[in-house]
């Protein structure tokens, strides 16, 4: 049955439109119910960067219209207003698209990790609502496999793609891990906030916040579960701090090289990592000359991220090869569906003949012992299985070569099988 995808993403729609087309879990459940009213298969993938509706129905045009109507209803926009932002992809191309999405190849940052979980959520929601039939089951399971393969067989997701995660990973190149480490936050900018959150997610032990305004320092300390100090206490705090995140709006250096040098004497060789994301900079660049001091400013971090994203793009070439391999497997599976009903009918027919013949010979077999009867059963079953093995294999091979329907028709004709094929199925070109 034809597979249809209608959706939009950050490549087609601005954030204002994507907001209108976003589904929360409740909205998604309702939408799945509406989309599958006539037994069609349906799944909805909704993230901050994309909304995509996958459906399977004998009438693809009708399904596409229904999805358009669903998205128009959700956004409150007319069909013509929505149309420029939406794309429609069908059959194998739709499968390849989902595989690329799951692999992170269609993401803003190649290889980002969250998308795989979001694809899994879309699949789970369709399963819960029982709107995933054989095609969507197969499609989503394979998409999840593609996502896992790409992340284990390539290095696409290994390097950081944001300033905050780059800063945290660099800190982990100095310290083995950040568990139990002490962080000093100087100032309270947005990037510093994100960096602190990233460091906290990696298990840092204690956070100290220093700010010109004691109120803001206290508020930030409360938010991160740390404690607040004044800027005059910074030098004393350095002696026991492992990572410093600086982002004040000060016009001069908040930390000078002599201040840090004095603190380093008390640290007995323990290193300290400075993340200076303030502009103008907060930490004297001469600090880098001190032994055990590592300093990255915003430009350094952005260069690390750019290099890392370039590395991800190189790995994307290998990931595309995996997607293409899996797309071939999905195509072969779809084509094999053409001959499955004929194979099932043929096997059922052969089994019924075997049973009938055994029943007819019942009188002559009555004198057999139970073990002899089992041997006869096994023998006749084996003969049937061996006879049907080669035709089954040949039909599946023919299906992969797009002649499946012709072979299926020939088998039905030769063996006098009923026409139980899907009437919507046409020979593939």
């Amino acid at each position: 049955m034809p597979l249809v995808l209608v959706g939009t993403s950050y490549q087609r729609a601005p954030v204002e439109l994507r907001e209108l087309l976003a589904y929360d879990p409740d909205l998604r459940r309702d939408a799945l119910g509406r989309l599958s009213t006539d037994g069609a298969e349906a799944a909805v993938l909704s993230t901050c960067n994309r909304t995509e509706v996958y459906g399977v129905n004998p009438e693809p045009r009708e399904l596409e219209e229904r999805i358009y109507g669903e998205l128009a209803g959700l956004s409150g926009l007319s069909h013509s207003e929505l149309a420029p932002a939406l794309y429609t992809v069908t059959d194998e191309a739709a499968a390849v698209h989902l595989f690329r999405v799951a692999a992170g190849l269609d993401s803003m940052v190649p290889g980002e990790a969250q998308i795989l979980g979001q694809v899994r959520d879309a699949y789970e929601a369709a399963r819960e609502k029982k709107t995933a039939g054989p095609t969507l089951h197969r499609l989503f399971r394979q998409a999840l496999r593609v996502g896992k393969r790409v992340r284990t067989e390539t290095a696409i997701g290994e390097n950081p793609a944001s300033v905050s995660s780059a800063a945290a990973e660099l800190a982990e190149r100095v310290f083995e891990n950040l568990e139990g480490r002490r962080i000093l936050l100087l100032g309270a900018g947005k990037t510093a906030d994100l960096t602190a959150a990233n460091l906290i997610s990696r298990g840092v032990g204690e956070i100290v916040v220093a700010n010109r305004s004691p109120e803001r320092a206290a508020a930030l300390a409360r938010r991160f579960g740390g404690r607040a100090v004044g800027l005059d206490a910074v030098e004393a705090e350095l002696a026991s701090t492992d990572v410093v995140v600086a982002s004040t709006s000060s016009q001069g250096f908040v930390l000078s090289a002599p201040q840090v040098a004095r603190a380093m004497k008390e640290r007995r060789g323990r290193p300290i990592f400075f993340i200076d994301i303030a502009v103008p900079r907060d930490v004297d660049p001469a600090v880098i000359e001190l032994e055990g001091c590592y300093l990255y400013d915003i430009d350094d971090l952005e260069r690390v991220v750019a290099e890392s994203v370039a590395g991800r793009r190189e790995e994307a070439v290998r990931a595309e090869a995996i997607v293409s391999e899996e797309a071939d497997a999905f195509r072969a599976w779809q084509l094999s569906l053409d001959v499955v009903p004929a194979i099932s009918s043929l096997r059922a027919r052969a089994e019924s003949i075997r049973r009938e013949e055994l029943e007819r010979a019942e009188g002559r077999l009555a004198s057999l012992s139970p073990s002899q009867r089992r041997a006869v059963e096994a023998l006749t079953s084996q003969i049937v299985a061996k006879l049907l093995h080669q035709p089954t294999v040949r039909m599946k091979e023919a299906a992969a070569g797009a002649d499946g329907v012709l072979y299926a028709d020939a088998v039905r004709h030769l063996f006098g099988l009923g026409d139980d094929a899907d009437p919507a199925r046409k020979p593939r070109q």
Partner: protein
Amino acid sequence: MTETALLLFWPALAGYTEAAVAYAGDTVRPGRLVRYAIWGVRLGWLAQTALLVAQAASADGFPWGTWAGSLNLFVWMCVGVYLIWGCRAPFRLLGLVVMPLAAVLLVLAWAAGGVGEPAGSQFGDVFLAFHVGLILAAFAAFTLAAALASLYLWQERRLKRRTPGVLRLRSPSLETLDQLTGRTIAVALPALTVGAGIGLARLESEGAAFDAIMGLTLLTWGVYAAFLVLRWEAGWRGRRTAYLALAGFLLVVLVRVVLTPFVHF
């Protein structure tokens, strides 16, 4: 014996060389060649193990009493210590230092006749087994400590210079490298102490002459002892201790490769 030894020597050398080349290639395209490198280390080490077993089986006494023979054993110990945890993901870069060194030293051992028929020695087997075994084990650990220290200095330089690709190659953190260097030396120094002590005791009982190797070995001991004392008492860490570990290793090379063939055997 010579034919069997050569039959095992070449696969061992091939494995180590392949691993060295694959590790170098892995720095250019991370993640692709490292699998081949690890298999090179494993297969090479197995072949060398078989070579040592064959030598031991055909020898009358301690088979590695000569300089070349002990070099063969030394390479096997170095690669063995590296195999224990060096092949794990964050430490793979150590292979860049350890494997080329192993390949070169194995060729040296072969060229000097250390992989063929074991030669007899004027010294007793038990004395040689402890004296040579312990000193070689200590030297192998010092070699590994030097590799860790080199990796530390390389990684530190990249972090200090803020190289944009600093995260592209997986490597252990500076803290881990520093700690492991310290621990390796802390384990190796007692082995060197006992091994050298046995040698000195023998020297005294036989009234033999004190040679330059013995003097340099004691100096090596002093450098590593200073490493530990400065680390524990003066709080030395990082670059300074890494340079000290490398200085100690230079003495090991001087003792093991440059002077021993001419002075001690």
